[in-house]
């Protein structure tokens, strides 16, 4: 089952490295017409047909963005797949993923939760100089000691274990294996941080930061605050279900969305980004994570 999940995530990752080629029967004009029909955008069509067969999905999206066409890799993938399903394109190969070093701060630890079923593991440190405290046998004190409580003497170490709820660990694995955050960082230089957090477990599931002084604990606090207030406002004013919030500050934008399982996705963008580009990329990122969750 775990292997199947892993393969699923890799399949998800691979799609953005695909190189599509058109059917040999299609001329340039045929391709332009088809791309216009399936994308409903002439600006995309004219650029794509110059590079189709030579660039992968990521590179096509990047090329278009360099020409001020606001589009995400997911948009390009969807268009190309539609054409493929209709028999106009085929997958010829894939490019080799580039591994860029990214300042990644991934926190996957919560506090220890010790239940009666989980015995505390401990090591006894013995050293010549340590004076062991005398242990008083329970019978001497005539005390009933519950089975889950064990006497702890000096020098014993309680091991801390990290816990992510199972249904969320699958999402974390998917985001990492598919390298979703890394891809968006690569394609959009305005992104300063991406954070995926669980409100239920009160932990950050995955995060990446680039040239910004924010820690996971700060991110968690701000996500909780913004999402709670946004939900309250939506409720009080009867706006319907809260979906996204945009915070516009002097130097940065924050876009935040609530997902399934009380998971929150937030992205911090540099303030100079075009609004259309920011919204498109954030919604595209959100769609990918939602797809992983389903």
């Amino acid at each position, binding site marked *: 089952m775990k*292997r199947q999940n*892993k*393969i699923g995530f*890799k*399949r998800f990752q*691979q799609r953005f*490295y695909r190189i599509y080629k058109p*059917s*040999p*029967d*299609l*001329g*340039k004009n045929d391709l332009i017409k088809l791309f216009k029909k399936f994308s409903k955008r002439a600006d995309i069509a004219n650029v794509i047909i110059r590079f189709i067969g030579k660039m992968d999905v990521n590179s096509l999206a990047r090329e278009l963005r360099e020409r001020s066409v606001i589009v995400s890799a997911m948009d390009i993938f969807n268009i190309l797949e539609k054409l*493929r399903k*209709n*028999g*106009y394109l*085929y*997958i*010829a*190969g*894939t*490019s*080799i*993923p580039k591994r860029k070093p990214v300042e990644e701060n991934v926190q996957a630890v919560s506090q220890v939760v010790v239940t009666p079923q989980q015995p505390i593991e401990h090591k006894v440190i013995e050293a010549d100089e340590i004076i062991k405290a005398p242990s008083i046998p329970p019978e001497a004190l005539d005390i009933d000691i519950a089975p889950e409580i064990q006497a702890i003497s000096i020098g014993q170490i309680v091991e801390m274990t990290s816990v992510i709820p199972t249904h969320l660990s699958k999402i974390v694995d998917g985001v990492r294996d598919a390298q979703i955050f890394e891809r968006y960082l690569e394609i959009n230089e305005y992104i300063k941080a991406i954070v995926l957090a669980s409100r239920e477990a009160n932990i950050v599931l995955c995060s990446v930061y680039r040239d910004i002084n924010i820690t996971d604990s700060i991110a968690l606090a701000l996500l909780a605050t913004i999402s709670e207030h946004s939900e309250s406002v939506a409720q009080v004013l009867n706006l319907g279900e809260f979906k996204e919030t945009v915070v516009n500050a002097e130097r940065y934008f924050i876009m935040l969305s609530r997902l399934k399982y009380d998971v929150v996705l937030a992205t911090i963008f540099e303030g100079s980004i075009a609004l259309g580009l920011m919204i498109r990329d954030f919604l595209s990122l959100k769609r990918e994570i939602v797809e992983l969750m389903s």
Partner: protein
Amino acid sequence: MSGLINTVGDQNLAYVLLSLITEIKKDNLCIIAENEVQKEALEIIVKDFLDILSIYKDKLKKIKIPNILIVTVDEYYDKWEDYSGYRLVFLEDSNLKWSALSILSKYLKDTFKKYKSLEFVYQDLSNIIVLVDSLLSKADLDILSMDLENKDEKKKRENIEKNFFSYFLENLKNKAKVTLATKILLYIAEKMYE
């Protein structure tokens, strides 16, 4: 043999064979089967074809047959990065709107129905490859790959294509095979000069 064909599907098989013989740029080709049963069937079929083609391999100057790997879809995605650089052949792409594919698929189906064997198909494809290779070696065919706007150049290209058609007809006799050979030649010429 009919079990193998049914397992793979004649359209899928046509796509595999056509991809194999027209891939001139990549050294390695990876065929991605839906499951283990389909993978095994393809291994047998592709091996049979390559055994026949190997007789003519030394005659080929321009066309080269790539190294072939067949994997299941799970095997592929598990290590997909290792196959970057390969020409990938997904059987899902056999619905490609390519006239050469339609011709080969129909020819494959009809031949198997008549002779209950694909050996004739393998032999015919091998002959086509040798003839195409011979033309590619003798003539400068970059005109076939160009987007022509000049009327005279278009006329020149039409004449060249007519000559090829006559050449193939003389050697292959059958119109469907001739059309297939012409389409394969045009496709490979375009790839060579792009």
